[in-house]
């Protein structure tokens, strides 16, 4: 075998003059490319959407909705009290017979129209979502709005096929009036996840968006009206925890669907005890993300990045517990740290931004407390030194190495761009560590070996298992948790079960 001799710089200097651009640039930093905020068409103040009209809250209270990336006020949003919630539930009850008994094909046309209008107004919705939530425009544009439109399209198609959903021979009937309480991490998308299957099933809804992110849901109200959804079929009551509680505990609501924290989910489950109301819960998680030594490492790194830094890590299914096979740990961590240097943190409206603002001061404080906890527990905090904007709520992408399973950062949901890295030695140990959690929402596996992948899929106690990918969503794909991550599924055929008798 021929051996080629090499020096530390094997490149022979050219005999030719030096090319004018021979020296590399210091950097090739991308110029800002800011999306036009005025596309959001904000109003100064939003009332409640009840019975097809904008209604002032009974107590005449409004609260500010702010842009978490600047802390500037975007608009004022109505605070719905029990009287307003009652009004909304009554409207939904009155609208039920008309919507339920409308020819299914007519309902379908209306829901298809919603999907189309979401596509038509996608740019406006993306800008609005980014302003209100703080997520990068890249994500609101390519993920949130796209999936919201797909969700309505998917369920619109089910509307006139409901007798194919439940066991043969039973006529599908809607549950009735649905109270739906959604979180702030995917405001528009979660509204679509809740409303689309409910409406397809012939139910009517009262939707309570999260306090910090009401604006896209209110914009959705306009779209629903334009698409021809009759008054009262969807009502939107904005407000904080008390508003949600009033809705959950309203005696004339037949079904509650909640997405949010496990703590609040437990409170809701408890308060519904004995009422006969139906319930679905989509709660927290601490997903195990398993990297085997036969994984395609570069793609695994992308999967890890997507898993924990997508939406600033404010994702219930975030791959927050990285379990790496010891034999590739150093290699993987090096690749990961290098890759993290490329994460662009900053103005969410910049099309080149990868990591936007944390949604609220409260959430940022929670994340920061976990950063302290992690350091206090003896884990090593690592990540790029980012220059963070002066105003707004920001957290640089972070990972902790040297994490052990008993640490709080390894077991508790942080809901931020913070990754805990642990190791394992064998597949069985990986399964044991992955499943040793009160949560069971999602998990990830990276391996090039099909047989191992399928065994892992089978053994992991989680509602969604991503193999050689992560954080992928689709209207046709059921999503939901095992254990304390909740029950019931959203998306797909299974997503109709909770909305039909």
């Amino acid at each position, binding site marked *: 075998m021929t051996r080629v001799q090499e020096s530390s710089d094997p490149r022979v200097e050219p005999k030719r003059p030096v090319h004018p651009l021979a020296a590399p640039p210091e950097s090739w930093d991308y110029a800002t490319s800011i999306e036009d905020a005025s596309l959001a068409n904000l109003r100064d103040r939003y009332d409640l959407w009840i019975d097809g009209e904008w209604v002032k809250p009974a107590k005449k209270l409004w609260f500010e909705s702010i842009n978490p990336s600047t802390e500037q006020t975007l608009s004022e949003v109505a605070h719905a009290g029990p009287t307003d919630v009652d009004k909304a539930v009554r409207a939904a009850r009155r609208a039920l017979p008309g919507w339920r008994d409308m020819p299914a094909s007519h309902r379908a046309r209306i829901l298809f129209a919603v999907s189309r209008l979401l596509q038509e107004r996608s740019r406006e919705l993306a800008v609005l979502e980014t302003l209100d939530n703080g997520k990068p425009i890249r994500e609101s544009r390519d993920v949130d709005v796209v999936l919201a439109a*797909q969700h309505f399209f998917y369920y619109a198609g089910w509307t006139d096929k409901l007798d194919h959903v*439940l*066991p043969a021979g039973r006529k599908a009937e809607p549950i009735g009036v649905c109270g739906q309480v959604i979180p702030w991490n995917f405001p528009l998308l979660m509204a679509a996840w809740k409303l689309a299957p409910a409406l397809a099933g012939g139910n009517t809804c009262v939707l309570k968006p999260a306090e910090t992110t009401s604006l896209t849901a209110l914009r959705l109200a306009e779209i629903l009206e334009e698409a021809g959804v009759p008054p009262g079929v969807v009502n939107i009551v904005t407000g904080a925890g008390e508003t949600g509680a009033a809705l959950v505990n309203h005696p004339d609501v037949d079904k509650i669907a909640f997405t949010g924290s*496990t703590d609040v*989910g*437990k*409170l*809701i*489950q*408890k308060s*519904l*005890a*004995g009422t006969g109301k139906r319930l679905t*819960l989509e*709660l927290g998680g601490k997903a195990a993300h398993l990297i085997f030594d036969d994984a395609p490492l570069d793609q695994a790194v992308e999967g890890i990045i997507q898993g924990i830094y997508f939406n600033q890590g404010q994702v219930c299914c975030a791959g927050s517990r990285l379990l790496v096979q010891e034999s590739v740990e150093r290699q993987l961590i090096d690749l990961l740290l290098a890759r993290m240097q490329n994460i662009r943190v900053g103005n969410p409206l910049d099309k080149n931004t990868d990591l936007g603002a944390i949604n609220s001061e409260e959430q940022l404080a929670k994340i920061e407390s976990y950063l302290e906890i992690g350091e206090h527990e003896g884990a090593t905090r690592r990540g790029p030194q980012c220059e963070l904007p002066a105003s707004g709520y920001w957290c640089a992408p972070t990972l902790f190495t040297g994490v052990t399973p008993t640490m709080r950062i390894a077991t508790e949901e942080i809901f931020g761009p913070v990754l805990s890295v642990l190791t394992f030695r064998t597949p069985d140990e990986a399964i044991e560590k992955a499943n040793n959690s009160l949560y069971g929402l999602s998990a990830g596996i990276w391996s090039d070996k099909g047989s191992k*992948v399928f065994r892992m*899929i089978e053994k992991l106690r*989680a*509602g*969604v*298992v*991503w*193999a*050689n*990918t992560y954080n*992928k969503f*689709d209207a*046709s*794909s*059921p*999503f*939901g948790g*095992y*254990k*304390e*991550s*909740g*029950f019931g*599924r959203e998306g*797909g*055929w*299974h997503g109709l*079960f909770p909305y039909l008798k």
Partner: protein
Amino acid sequence: MTAPPVHKTFKLYINGKFPRSESGRTLPLFDPKQKSEIPLTQIARGSRKDVRDAAQAARKAFAGWSAAVPLLRGQILHRMAELLDSRGREFEEYLTFYCGATPARAEAEVEAAADRLLWYAGWCDKLAQLYGTVNPVVGPYFNFSMPEPTGVVCAFAPPKPALLGLVSLLAPILVPGNTVVCVVPLEAAPIAVTLAEVCATSDLPAGVLNIVTGDPDELMPHASVHREFDGNFLVSSQAEVVRDIEAAAANHVKRQLTVPAHAPAWWHKSDAQDVRWMQAFLEIKTAWHTMGQ
């Protein structure tokens, strides 16, 4: 002269064994047909610690039972139906003697219970085809969903129909691969323990099904908050009981199936043979895998 019968002791069924209650307590079972000072028999009065032991046994058995191939689970449930049927006379006698059923009613109940068990046995290797889907997602991914068992379920059995109610309650839990601890009221205890004997001789692995007889009012508050249980199957029409159990379920986000005691016409297949009873204790797992070269 006829010899007196050999006394039969009705004990608990935990982890494949028939222990007495760790508390050493029993409850007298009186004749339901006539007032009498003399009990027909003594029933083991299970304690919270018996429930705990049963829960641990059920958890230990879960890995094996849930991973057993569905065909095997189906054959074991079929075997239970075989033995239930072959011991039909005994069940009929007990139903008339301990539960006050007429002989005709008892005979019909045994037949219906065997039928029901067979109906469910046949579901084991079909459930994945009923609830499994391949999902047409956008992008180069193979995406499928499949049913998996929830885990360990606590079942609160109705007093009657003792046999049919019990079978209707337990079979849908076992089919997907859950394991179960069944809390049985005094009235149904002789039947439940006899059914346990069927289980013990049916190749049903130890711990998959556990029976704790006793006073449900005493056991429910403990069983309902036990965090080893992932779900509750409650048959009750008492509003307070339902509320308490459902509220306790929230401490562990348990899957709750509540059926009013009177509502399911246990005898009517259209009501009591409902795939949604299995659906209550199964989880839908969705898997994504890339499709590339």
